């Protein structure tokens, strides 16, 4: 029996809503996807082109949607301009508020530049509205040099690093929540972000019908690596803190010790991570399995990345700070709960589909002069000829244009 029993203790609600999870999820996908887009789109590595095109799509869509989620987590959303009226260089969140638009501009600019050739091409095709819209988006017939694109790309990479650092630091400096207050949290955000983005690209690869074999292989490889890294970070975190009297490990052990829900979460989280690593490793090795299971693994990876953020951001807020036990948090149904979560996913889907509809993103390229993309290794990179038909069907309009 404990020596102390609580008779009257206050209850506290959560301060950050699931919007925060959505933001941290999308923004991690955003900066990590940019890194996957980099080899093909910024550095011009042919073998990565297909993967990078998918990544660029992922990057643009997540970068556009993430701030929408972030805005919603402000209780005074329309006061967002205060961030710019009162710059506060000592606040990570303020720093983030300046980085975020930069990042958005850079990534969107990069994508736009990468997509422009194809857009211009489409604008000349006879595809009624779609051509016209492509023309509008392309916005003129001018060309930028490849150098400029690389520069923009490098800028985007820089902002993505900024995003990585600020989102991690912003949470990790919060002493008030021991579970957050650890130097190992930011790398973990990155590792799980990488896992998530691999999953996303695997999934998009299948969904878009591209079914690019290289992409599957590349992503599964990185994913397996990221899993190992994540495991390594978790282990170091644990060892680093296992003997400490306080700090995030102690807090985590307390939670797991005291709450069956936390035990379940810990076991589920751990299992999902290990399972993912093992599966990634196994699936990566055989092309057949890659083709068949890649996208399923992709979904699992997305799930892991999302859940990690949910646990870190939401569950941690339920750990009572000044009393024993845990505060009740039941995700609400409405806007500040489940519907909100779904809404952001809905917006993301819309963003993806709008791009899909109006932008020939499959032809993204570093080469500003290329009119028609037609990757050289297009058919060979496709896992199955059967799917190439559908994949090429879409690109036909452009090719013939």
């Amino acid at each position, binding site marked *: 029996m404990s020596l102390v029993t609580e008779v009257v203790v206050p209850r506290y609600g959560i301060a950050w809503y699931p919007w925060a999870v959505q933001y941290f999820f999308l923004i991690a996908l955003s900066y990590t996807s940019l890194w996957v887009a980099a080899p093909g789109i910024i550095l011009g590595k042919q073998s990565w082109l297909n993967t990078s095109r998918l990544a660029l799509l992922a990057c643009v869509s997540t970068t556009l949607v993430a701030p929408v989620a972030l805005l919603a987590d402000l*209780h005074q*959303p*329309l006061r967002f301009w205060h961030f710019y009226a009162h710059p506060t260089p000592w606040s990570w969140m303020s720093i983030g508020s300046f980085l975020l638009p930069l990042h958005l501009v850079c990534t969107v600019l990069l994508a736009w530049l990468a997509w422009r050739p194809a857009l211009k091409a489409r604008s000349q095709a006879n595809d009624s509205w779609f051509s016209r819209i492509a023309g509008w988006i392309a916005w003129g017939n001018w060309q930028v040099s490849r150098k400029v694109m690389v520069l923009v790309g490098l800028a985007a990479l820089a902002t993505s690093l900024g995003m990585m650092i600020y989102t991690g630091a912003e949470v990790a400096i919060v002493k008030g929540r021991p579970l957050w207050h650890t130097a190992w949290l930011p790398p973990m955000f990155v590792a799980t972000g990488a896992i998530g983005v691999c999953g996303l690209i695997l999934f998009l690869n299948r969904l878009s019908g591209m079914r690019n074999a290289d992409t599957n292989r590349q992503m599964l490889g990185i994913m397996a690596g990221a899993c190992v890294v994540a495991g390594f970070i978790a282990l170091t975190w644990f060892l680093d803190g296992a003997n400490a009297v306080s700090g995030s490990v102690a807090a985590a052990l307390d939670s797991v010790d005291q709450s069956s829900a936390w035990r379940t979460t810990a076991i589920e989280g751990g299992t999902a991570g290990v399972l993912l690593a093992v599966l990634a490793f196994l699936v990566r090795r055989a092309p057949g399995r890659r083709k068949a299971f890649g996208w399923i693994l992709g979904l699992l990876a997305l799930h892991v990345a999302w859940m990690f953020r949910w646990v870190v951001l939401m569950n941690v807020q339920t750990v009572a700070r000044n009393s024993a036990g845990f505060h009740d948090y039941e995700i609400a149904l409405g806007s500040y709960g489940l*519907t909100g979560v779904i*809404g952001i996913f809905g*917006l993301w889907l*819309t963003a993806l589909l709008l791009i899909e509809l109006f932008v020939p993103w499959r032809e993204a390229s570093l080469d500003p002069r290329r009119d028609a993309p037609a990757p050289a290794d297009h058919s060979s990179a496709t896992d199955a000829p059967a799917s190439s038909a559908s994949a090429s069907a879409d690109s036909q309009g452009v090719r013939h244009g």
Partner: protein
Amino acid sequence: MDNSRRRLLKGAAATGGAAAFAAGYSGPLVKMAKGVSGSAGEKPDHHIHGNSLAPEYTVDLKSGELTLNPDQRMAFTVCYGCTTKCGVRVRVDNESDQVLRSIGNPYHPLSSEPHLPMHTPVADALKSVSAYEEQGLAGRSTTCARGNAMIGQITSPHRVTHCLKRVGGRGERRWERIAFEDLIEEICEGGDLFGEGQVDGLRAIHNHDEPVDADNPEYGPKANQLLMMEATDYGRSAILKRFGFNAFGTRNYGHHGSYCGLAFRMGSGALLDDMAKFAHVKPDYTRAKFALFIGTAPSQAGNPFKRQGRLLAEARATGNLDYVVVDPGLNASASHAAGERSRWVPIRPSSDTAFAMAMIQWLIEHEAYAADYLAMPSPEATEAANENGHTNATHLVIETEEHPRRGHFLRRSDLGKLEGNVEAGSDADDVMVVNRDGELKPSREVRQATLFVERDIVIPGNDETADGNISVKSSLVKLRDTANEHSIEEYAEHCGIDARVIKHIAERFAAYGRDAVVDTHGGMMSATGFYGAYGLMMLNLLAGSFNRQGGAALGGGKFNGTGSGPRYDLSDFPGKRGPEGVFVSRTRFAYEDTSEYQRKVDAGENPYPARAPWRPLAPPILTEQLSSALDGYPYPIKAVIGCMANPLYGQAGLHTTIVDKLKDPKNLGLFVAVDGFINETNRYADYIVPDSVMYEVWGFTGAWSGTLTKMTTACWPIVEPRQDKTAEGEPISMESFFIATAKQLGLPGFGDKAIPDANGELHPLNRAEDFFLRAAANIAYMGEPLPEASKSDVQHSGIEPLLPKLTRTLPVEERSRVAYLYARGGRFEDHEDAFDGDKKLAHAWSRALCVYNPQVGTTFNSQTGERLSGTPCLQEPRFADGTAMREVYPEDDWPLLAFSYKSNVMNSYAIGLERLRMIKPYNPVLMHTDDAARHGIAHGDTVRIESPGNDALALALVSDGVMKGALGIEHSFGHTELGASEHRIDGEAFAGNDWVGAGISINDLGFADPTRDVAGTWLEGVSGASVRQGLPIRVSRAEG
């Protein structure tokens, strides 16, 4: 799939996504829409201070200059947050007439310690609680959480503001609105009011010519068939009693005393030799050095709640006081932060007589009593010794069986020594004691008498006893005899406290000598409470701590304005009646004096048991009134007028016992409730008259024991009452209800010529203030009249709205003295007047303290025919016919004893207040770790609690903070009314908030006494107090 179909599908999916987004983002979008004006929320008044209230005044920290906020006023009045009735200072917004907040009245001893002298100008009083020279830290004058939250009563959505008449059957929670004047007409004149047949109105009941029962003429007139009930005197009772006793002339009136603390009060009364008013004492916390709290929980609850809490806390910090709390449950009194200075000792519920007798035995055995003090047999002796008050320890009790005065004290008349025209048994017929030389002497002639006397007195020519002798014992011997009936170990076994611990407590108690004090109260509401309280108070007597600084203090009493005062006579009027006959509660009347008894004796039958208990020592008790009246013994009641009372919630088992009978109009024709709310009791009323609530009322409340100075709190409607008005434009309220009813019935004492002044001239009583302002004048003129209020006083005390009423009601010379009183919220004796020289308290109890109480010792139990013990003694919980509770409900079947304790934040009617519910929304029940383990129950589990009367579900708080074998239930939860259930008024929904009904009430686990014929709940034998401590129960883990 062709391209355009594909695009169409994608477009559709995109639209779907967008729609999901729109739905999901609606919250932020709404905020953004609101945010266009600059804020997504309400824009607060100030960018830093938000919506914090504007200060009521400012004090310049350098000069001390005080500036009032012209938008607010402050007024002094009384808090209705609990029966403590503290004097408070209330901030009101002038424009909206909304109460903003309340805080203590610095003149008031229940809110501040020390309180300010009355002559302090009000402006200085306001400064004394400010930050100026940090005066407010020491000068703090407070309201507690409840008092603060209570402002919510005024605007409560559950408040009744219209006259209501029931629709459908009683208790169906359907009502219609009715005009006040129609309501008065209907209840006075009667008729077929509900389509259920003829109902007698008050006019028909008001019959002083015919007896209520011709066979039992002592019962009195038919007019006794009106029962008046109320919670307690919240300062307005004088009007209710004027109507009931003296205008209408009914015998039957009851208040909550019998289910509040009557067992304590009567036990205390037995010791103080006050079986009429049951005076009681409280520790003088300002100077106490060692206190034993048993069955009372200062700072958890207790009267006066705040004052006790404050002084106890202060004593803990200064280190002046050590104390032990003996209680089945741990509560706020025992403070961990105070370390060893406070200690909690768990005790089994309803076993306090065992603890008390063990202590008494130890103290007597170790001669650890104030021997010299006890040996003083008379006021003369104590006066000579510069002491306050004496005891009857040395008085001699007649023990001889056949002596007609057996059980009484031996007096001069018993020795045939009465001279002159002295009446036998009168004060002048002095009691005899044995002096130090062994001689029998009248007490007045002895300075120090022999404590322990046991002898036969030879009386020449005595023919009243067989041998002509009278055997006597001194009171102290009688006490020693009862205390020695069992060993300390047996007592220990009984109360569940280790004998060593009891001895240790006794040693500590004794070590403090005359500076040790014992206090008790609500814990005595068990089946052994009367003797428990008597026994515990005996410890104060043995220690000799009565009437002493730091000891057991009577308190200063009050300035009574509603009697016959210096300006007006508010207790007498032309045509006044005095009630006659037997109380329907069968109290203050010996069964042996009834016709029923006589008939049985005449018929040669054993007169015992009476059909139901008669309790000659007890006051009229509401605990018996309702159930007895519904069963018609001694006689039925035809109408009940209840004013803010809630026995169906407050009395254990009453609901189960009477509710079906109460619903049937055949058992009770008319039930009118005057109340601010619909509660568990007036839910069954036929009519509800809306009443003023706190801060809207007139009245004068008195002081509590423990307040060492004399005081009276004044209240007046500092905000306009929110309920409907009468045709004359007065707020409908208890006062206007009685005035209108009396006028309708043509009763004396109300109307135009009702209140005589000192010259015999008659003044009207047509409005509440006609009565209360005149009472105020009485108080202002008592002793040395109060000075006149200054202009500044008037400004600083918010009494401007009162001035026109003063002008309208009082002659010019009285006005500004009365204003002086209202400007300070009452009349208060100065703090230093509490104390007298030589450790004496200024206000002392002068009657002999009883080691043996002859009135108790000569009273018979109407069920068993046995004599009551005149000294405290071990008791076992029993039912009315004398059967032990454990015989009917053995421990094997009912292993636990439930008890209740007051909530430190709630009270019985506070549950409607959100600001208290948000802190304490619920009352988990206290279970001991071992009991929980035995029943397979874990902390936080849902448990089913079964009693012989009912069962209920609750959550278990498992810890060692409760006595093994006991289950503690915090009182004030488990409501079904006061907002918990939905009512329909004119077809519209009213109230119905589930959270108001959260938790559990022990009273729902109460039950009818299984040994009774005339139904009644389980009541303490001597007093008839409700038994709510020590209810037999069993628990089990509820599935799911």
